[in-house]
């Protein structure tokens, strides 16, 4: 039981403040160190593991809202996780509607919460 305490403490040490990373796993084993890349989310620098999806990196950082809808301006996040429902889309490197659940992070990637269609104006009616 003291062991368990230690492993929780280690989590925090690794900078996983939200405690969302699955560092130890009975089947998958310990989380291999892996290369860390920096991404920028809404202007804030965040560390991500190379190869993971944007959605995973955000969840690990405690970010669950990926976008706000056009009509009701409601928050949306990860839903299907397989690139089908397109609810987790964000503006990535200036491109709107990028499916974050299937798109891997890359060093220096600039990610923004998407509002509506992510365009420079919501629709031509609102110009």
């Amino acid at each position, binding site marked *: *039981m*003291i*062991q*368990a*305490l230690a*492993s*929780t403490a280690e989590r925090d040490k690794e900078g996983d403040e939200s405690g969302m990373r699955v560092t130890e796993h*009975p*089947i998958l084993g310990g989380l291999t160190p892996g290369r860390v890349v920096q991404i920028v989310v809404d202007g804030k620098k965040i560390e991500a593991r190379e190869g993971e999806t944007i959605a995973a990196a955000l969840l690990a950082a405690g970010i669950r809202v990926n976008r706000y809808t056009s009509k009701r301006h409601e928050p949306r996040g990860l839903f299907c996780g397989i690139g089908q429902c397109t609810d987790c889309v964000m503006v990535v490197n200036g491109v709107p509607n990028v499916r974050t659940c299937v798109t891997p992070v890359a060093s220096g990637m600039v990610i923004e919460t998407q509002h509506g269609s992510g365009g420079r104006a919501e629709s031509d009616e609102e110009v």
Partner: protein
Amino acid sequence: MPRGLTVDGFPTEEELKKSPGYPSEERFKRGPVAVVECVQEIPCNPCELACPRKAIQVGVPITNLPRLDEEKCTGCGICVARCPGLAIFVVDKTYSDKEASVSFPYEYVPLPREGDVVLAVDRAGSVVCDGTVLRISNPKRNDRTAVVTIAVPKGMADEVRGIARIRGERIG
């Protein structure tokens, strides 16, 4: 009031005793034995191949309920980690004067350690008594399914089927 596997999610005593994988009380008296808690006809038979003594038979079709040949079974426990449904246990009601031992699959981290006093749970996940960890076995052939053996008061041998997971919250 037990409502059965499909409502409560775990088998009742009656469902278990009706199944061909459940040892007789006489067999329990003679030492460790496998308890196969597989009471639904599902297409699955690794238990059959797991046993070196062919003490578990499924046969054809593979939806047959596993049948335990309690004379052949030595309670070695190889089948415990091989059952994909984690539905096989080894119970030794002769472990000591006052205690029985129960072996069960355990796929969580962290693992308990030998000698730890743990919270033993029944099929419904309720803590029913303390248990003492006797063994943790996790050889390669188990493919990451550890088998934990704990000692519990003899009267709990038919109830205890696991331990409460060791979690951060419970520490201290």
